[in-house]
């Protein structure tokens, strides 16, 4: 079957009224829950799961997928307006999106986020359609050594973003990796830093960490801060519209972010997170004025948003063609198929082409709906900023607590948020970047596990990292990244 035939099959399937309605339902709900701090796609999909019993598996998958990528749009809203990221990839969006809001340019930031998300997703769809076969094989080519080096590369490349001085970035990554050590060690089964608490065996709750470090800390810092109350007054209708300068800055970051996201999304595990951070790091490195980043650079919103949305599209390839879910939400969607007796795997493309291509077509339809829905909503979100902070923040506190609770239903996690919030506030005072902490927290355990696994498989031979071509490529890239500043220093002296 040619690509065009597949696409036509997909479109004709996805445009059937009884399928289309679920697509609409999914993206609406996703975009709504994405705005709620910490709630995100996971809670919404768990909620919908029982309903999928009574639906056709194709409709179920298309609806749940709609929630998944729809939530990315909503997540950007909370990150930009309130500095409330529920995921590490949205944390990147706060780096420049929130400063823009503080400068009264929230409209521009939201507009950019929406356009970038849409374009990023479209890039992801094109890549998925053209390279579906290649992408699905990508995951099996990556071994433990390759993953370990790829993630170390990601950490090194991103290590200085959002930090005022490099050493502060390193410290935050180290702290994040250390916090990631909490829980059961995959390789040995040892229970580290759990102090007998079963709630800690699977590690700290990521949403609790993000909500404490960003949300709670931000609320505390703003309650008696007179500056915060002025934000609303700064907004004018003119500030909603991008200037010609802004429009010139956006397209290339979107393309680069989309390309990065399409590639990393196809690797199960951390596609979205890595692509958002790497897109940001790329833009800052390429920029002629890197000092603008962190203070409201529009490229810092465009690149990562395009990246994480592209990744959320290509992430479906390993999930459906290998049965390898990239994250817990993907696993949940697999569960919805398994209920219907469908085991996603290598035969999926041949056995159920209408499901796969129908889903791909629904991505295009869904994202189109999302952009049409979200652009007019920007006005409403901006209006929300006019609500005095005193009315808003108590609601933020209650909502974020419930968001944390929704992840696994343990009040333990809410209590944890209080402790993390204290740390987050102290970090705000010392100007330490919580975004890098989250990156270290997410990548640290994966780096450790894969590093040790690679050595175990190689029977202790460290040459494995240089013998595998993919791993060796990343080792080379890491060396270049580390030597680059030294080279620049040397050239400046010479």
């Amino acid at each position, binding site marked *: 079957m040619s690509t065009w035939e597949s696409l036509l099959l997909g479109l004709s399937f996805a445009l059937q009224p009884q399928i289309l309605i679920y697509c609409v339902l999914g993206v609406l709900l996703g975009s709504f829950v994405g705005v709620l701090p910490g709630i995100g796609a996971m809670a919404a999909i*768990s909620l919908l799961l029982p309903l999928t019993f009574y639906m056709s598996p194709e409709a179920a998958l298309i609806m749940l997928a709609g929630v998944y990528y729809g939530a990315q749009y909503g997540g950007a809203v909370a990150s930009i307006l309130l500095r409330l990221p529920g995921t590490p990839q949205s944390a990147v969006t706060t780096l420049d999106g929130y400063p823009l809001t503080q400068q009264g340019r929230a409209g521009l930031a939201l507009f950019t986020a929406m356009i970038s998300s849409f374009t990023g997703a479209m890039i992801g769809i094109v890549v998925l359609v053209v390279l579906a076969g290649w992408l699905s094989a990508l995951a099996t080519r990556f071994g433990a050594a390759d993953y370990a080096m790829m993630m170390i590369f990601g950490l090194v490349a991103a290590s200085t973003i959002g930090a005022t001085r490099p050493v502060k970035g390193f410290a935050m990554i180290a702290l994040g990796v250390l916090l990631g050590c909490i829980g059961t060690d995959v390789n040995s089964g040892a229970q580290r830093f759990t102090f007998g608490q079963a709630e800690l065996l699977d590690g700290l709750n990521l949403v609790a960490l993000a909500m404490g470090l960003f949300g709670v800390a931000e609320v505390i810092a703003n309650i008696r801060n007179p500056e915060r109350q002025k934000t609303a007054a700064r907004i004018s209708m003119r500030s909603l519209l991008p200037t010609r300068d802004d429009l010139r800055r956006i397209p290339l970051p979107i393309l680069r972010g989309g390309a990065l996201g399409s590639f990393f999304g196809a690797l199960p595990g951390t596609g979205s997170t890595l692509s958002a951070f790497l897109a940001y790091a790329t833009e800052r490195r390429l920029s002629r004025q890197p000092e603008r980043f962190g203070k409201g650079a529009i490229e810092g919103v465009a690149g990562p948003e395009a990246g994480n949305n592209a990744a959320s599209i290509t992430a479906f390839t390993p999930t459906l063609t290998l049965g390898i879910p990239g994250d817990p939400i993907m696993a949940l969607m697999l569960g919805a198929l398994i209920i219907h007796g469908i085991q996603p795997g290598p035969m999926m493309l041949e056995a159920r082409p209408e499901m796969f291509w129908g889903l791909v077509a629904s991505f295009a339809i869904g994202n189109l709906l999302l952009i049409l829905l979200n652009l007019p909503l920007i006005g409403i979100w901006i209006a929300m900023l006019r609500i005095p902070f005193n009315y808003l923040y108590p609601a933020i506190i209650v909502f974020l607590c419930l968001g944390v609770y929704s992840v696994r239903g343990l009040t333990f996690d809410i209590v944890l948020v209080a402790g993390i919030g204290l740390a987050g506030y102290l970090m705000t005072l010392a100007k330490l970047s919580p975004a890098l902490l989250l990156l270290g927290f997410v990548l640290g355990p994966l780096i450790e596990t894969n590093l040790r696994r690679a050595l175990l498989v190689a029977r202790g031979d460290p040459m494995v990292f240089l013998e595998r071509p993919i791993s060796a490529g990343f080792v080379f890239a890491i060396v270049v990244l580390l030597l680059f500043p030294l080279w620049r220093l040397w050239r400046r002296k010479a």
Partner: protein
Amino acid sequence: MKQSTTLRLVLASALCSLALPASAQDDWPSQPLRVFVGFPAGSSPDVLARVVTEKLSERLGQPVVIENRPGAGGVIGIQQMLVSAGDGHTFGTTINGPMTTSQRMMDDTGFDVAEDIAPVTLLATSPLVLAVASDSGIEDLEGFIAAAGAEPDALSYGSVGQGSGAHLTAELFAAEAGLSMLHIPFTSYAEVTTSIIGGEIDAGFMAPSAALSFVEAGTMNVLGITSSEPFGQAPDVPLIAGSAGLPEDFRAELWNAFIAPADTDEAIIARLNTEITDILEDPGVQEQMLGMGWQVAPGTPESMAERIAVDTEMWGAVIDRVEAQ
């Protein structure tokens, strides 16, 4: 302790048969039931629980709400069930781990299986299959044992974690076959299959449903299955028991069960047992479960208590051996 539980159960069932249906339990259930599941929504144990509770709700005329409390291999779910217990409407489903091996693997699970939990019935069992990459050239169990026996740690195998069913099953197999294999822990079957196909590791014991689609695609071979009878989802896979010199009684299965807090009224447990075993007799339910890799295994609370005791001892011995290495 085990004896007293069994005794209590025997007494309980005797009492129920006398007391039902004209007892004070006539008004049960008077409110929605809550069923705690120690795994996330959409996971295999969760889906299984949903299939059963959906029918249970129809039969009892009350909603049955699934409460997902994932964590610590299912232990959190049981802990949360026990915290919320006391109203006669709080139950749980669990896999075998927390009921048999978690006490050994964790510092403190916070509950005692015999004292705190009343078995209701087993729901279903799932064997594991031994899978290798098809380009490994290994076609059958004899070939595998010959390749693995060439020298210690000649072959590596993946599992879904230290102390997981997949790990302990492989160690049991290795011990029975006189092998020593290198254990590489992962966190999900999906990771294990990718790693086997990618040629990074050699083998793995895994859920049949995780391997079968790769067998169909020609990238994996399954060499044997750990159940004591041919398994409906993969009837052609040979039994490990009795082949290639392994003992006739070789059996290693994961199971899923319905449980209640220990202080639940015996009549309620008996009623639930009747309803659930009836549900599991339904051919539609059986087929649905088989599609997800589970073979229904209805039974009495007593037989479940016995299964817990047998498995705790069997896996305990395997853990002893692993720890001694």
